[in-house]
């Protein structure tokens, strides 16, 4: 019995992936859990292990092709074994990306029944509910019915869509557990069609003048564009800036750097900023929250996202989970580890998710202070500028101190100016009086 290899869902909000490289070719043997292919998503690059031991019978998705999570990528089995007719030859002959016209006719195909979510008896599905569900890619198994006998009403499904947003990604079913029902290679924009085309990506079609060069967007660049634009459209951004005297932090770091190094840990200033930030968040739960129409969601966990540059390729935000529970050493370890693996593109998908607040250290590139964009759905982002020795007036005397500007961009729906300043002042206080 042949085994199928499916594009996994590599994270909660990751709906598609690009096959970057096949590590085994058709006819080659592979052992279970050995890497079979490399996949690139908008968040991470990763290797996909083989689900079984056997011979690679058929590779269905060529390198460089982006497919939805749940799409069958390949078949494994005994040499010469036949691939199930419904999914094999048809799949092999399935139209490639460019043949959208043919693919369109397949769109009405039913959404795959998720194996992981046990189907319940949905009762009567009214025409309008069916239409809304189809238009918005709603899995009705997930909608709570309030009608007669638990029937899902129009209001129920509309409320579900509104809560989830028009894109199904947020609440997408774990379809990697689901056979793709043979409709392979459906272009993802058709599978996950949204009523509102992404504004960041809809500006195409502009003529390229002679001599100009059109550089196709990478997945990560597109993803960054989407997130930035969405954030600016979502939160009213306000930025407030304060100055910190880092004398005590600098002294502490000088005293402990060697000891940390003996543990194989590089004690950076970032570690101090993250530590101070997570402690301040503990004192100001409002800042560690997310806006929702139903009400403010105060997060119990303090997970600090750490914006990490990948050079020209963009940036990625690995998350230090439960930062408030970690010692300086613990945070330093996490920062080192995540930053290193981010640059090596070795992050696990879940390591870039679940952040409740973000810090960005733009001072590294010489910036004095900046007004960063909030990482949705978080309440704020802390920007850290360059640390410079500056002349400051202390008790009417001029002193030279290591100074830094830190800027807090916050969601003005959640925080008012005064409360945001109080929170930022707490960060300043923790850093200035480091002990």
């Amino acid at each position, binding site marked *: 019995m042949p085994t199928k290899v499916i594009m996994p869902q590599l994270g909660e909000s990751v709906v598609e992936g690009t096959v970057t490289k096949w590590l085994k070719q058709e006819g080659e043997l592979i052992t279970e859990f050995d890497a079979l292919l490399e996949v690139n998503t908008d968040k991470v690059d990763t290797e996909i292990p083989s689900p079984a031991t056997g011979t690679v019978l058929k590779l269905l998705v060529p390198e460089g092709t982006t497919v939805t999570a749940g799409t069958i990528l390949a078949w494994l089995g005994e040499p010469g074994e036949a691939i199930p007719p419904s999914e094999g030859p048809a799949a092999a002959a399935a139209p490639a990306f460019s043949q959208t016209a043919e693919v369109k006719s397949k769109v009405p195909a039913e959404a795959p029944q998720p194996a992981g979510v046990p189907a319940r008896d949905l009762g009567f599905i*009214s*025409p*309008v*509910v*069916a*239409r809304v569900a189809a238009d918005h890619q709603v899995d009705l198994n997930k909608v709570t019915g309030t*009608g*007669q006998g638990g*029937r899902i*009403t*129009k209001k129920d499904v509309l409320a579900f869509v509104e809560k989830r947003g028009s894109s199904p990604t947020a609440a997408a079913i774990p379809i990697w557990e689901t056979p793709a029902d043979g409709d392979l290679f459906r272009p993802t924009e058709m599978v996950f069609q949204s009523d509102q085309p992404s504004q960041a990506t809809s500006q195409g079609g502009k003529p390229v003048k002679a001599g100009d060069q059109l550089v196709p967007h990478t997945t990560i660049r597109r993803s960054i564009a989407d997130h930035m634009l969405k954030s600016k459209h979502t939160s009213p951004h306000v930025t407030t800036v304060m100055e910190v005297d880092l004398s005590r932090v600098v002294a502490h770091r000088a005293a402990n750097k060697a000891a940390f190094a003996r543990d194989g840990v590089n004690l950076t200033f970032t570690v101090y900023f993250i530590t101070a930030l997570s402690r301040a968040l503990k004192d100001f739960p409002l800042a560690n929250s997310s806006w929702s129409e139903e009400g403010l969601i105060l997060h119990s966990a303090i997970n600090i996202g750490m914006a990490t540059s990948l050079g020209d390729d963009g940036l990625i935000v690995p998350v230090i989970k439960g930062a408030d529970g970690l010692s300086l050493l613990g945070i330093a370890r996490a920062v080192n580890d995540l930053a290193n693996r981010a640059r090596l593109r070795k992050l696990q998908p879940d390591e870039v998710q679940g952040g409740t607040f973000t810090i960005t250290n733009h001072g590294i590139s010489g910036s004095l202070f900046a007004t960063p964009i909030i990482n949705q759905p978080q309440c704020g982002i802390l920007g850290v500028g360059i640390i410079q020795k500056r002349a400051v007036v202390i008790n009417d005397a001029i002193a030279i101190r290591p100074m830094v500007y830190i800027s807090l961009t916050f969601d003005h729906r959640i925080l008012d100016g005064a409360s945001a300043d109080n929170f930022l002042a707490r960060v300043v206080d923790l850093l200035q009086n480091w002990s």
Partner: protein
Amino acid sequence: MPEMTLIDAVRMAMDEELARDPNVIIIGEDVGVRGGVFRATMGLHEKYGSDRVIDSPLAEASIVGVGIGAALYGMRPICEIQFADFIHPAFNQIINEAAKMYYRSNGDWTVPMVIRTPYGGGIGGGLYHSQSLEAFFTHTPGLKVVVPSTPYDAKGLLKSAVRDPNPVMFFEPKKGYRLIKGEVPDEEYLVPLGKANVTREGTDVSVFAYGMMHYYTMQAAEKLAQEGISAEVIDLRTLYPVDRDAILASVEKTGKALVVYEDNLTGGYGAEIAALIGEHAFTSLDAPVRRLAGPDVPAVPFSHPMQDWFMLNPEKIAAAIRDLAGF
């Protein structure tokens, strides 16, 4: 703006039209000296004389036949059939002559005639004074069918009907003649035929009604609002040609439709509305289209408890809306 009853508004419309156009005449049983059995034409005989407000024999075929003839000669007759139940002797004149004249003469002849008639039960009228007959006539292209439910509309619609170049059946809810009151401007105005009226905006259920049932439906909707159920009420006003756009727009909004009519359920006018919605708004529906109507018995019973059993009322309508809202 004076408040008046529905029948006062009907009289006002005829008075204004008689004064405006010397070709307008009224023909019917007891419409002259007596001023009509419901007093719809009271005072008009004295004001306009026997040539224009004409007492007819007790012969409905003759009333309509004379009306058709007069209309073909350029008059604008308003025929009164004393009770809709008495219209059947005139059926041949209406269906075979009035409705078809324009079509059969290839547009050379028209019958600019209005047939006014009180319809509906709930007044202890029994078998011969309670019928709702609009469905016979909405089935006949060539006739326009109008049912007002407010004094304002009664005046504006009747004036439009008088000025319409083709025959208009004008059904007046007799139970509402003196029960339904409302403000009616003294000045001239028309309410266009073929346009429904959203008389109450709502989000949960669309309720389509006309005439007396619209009056009751408004009461039911009022009551349900206190329970948190938001019913949208559409007064159809003109049944033929019906305002499809208004009907479909409302169903698109609420996803649920209830059609309320007093006539017997089967083959009643509401069935047409239900079919229209099923055909053109299917993908907007969140529940089956429902009809709330009189039972399929041959007549409205005379016995009061039996009459109450037959007739719809605000409570029955509220129950149907509540049920549909909860679907």
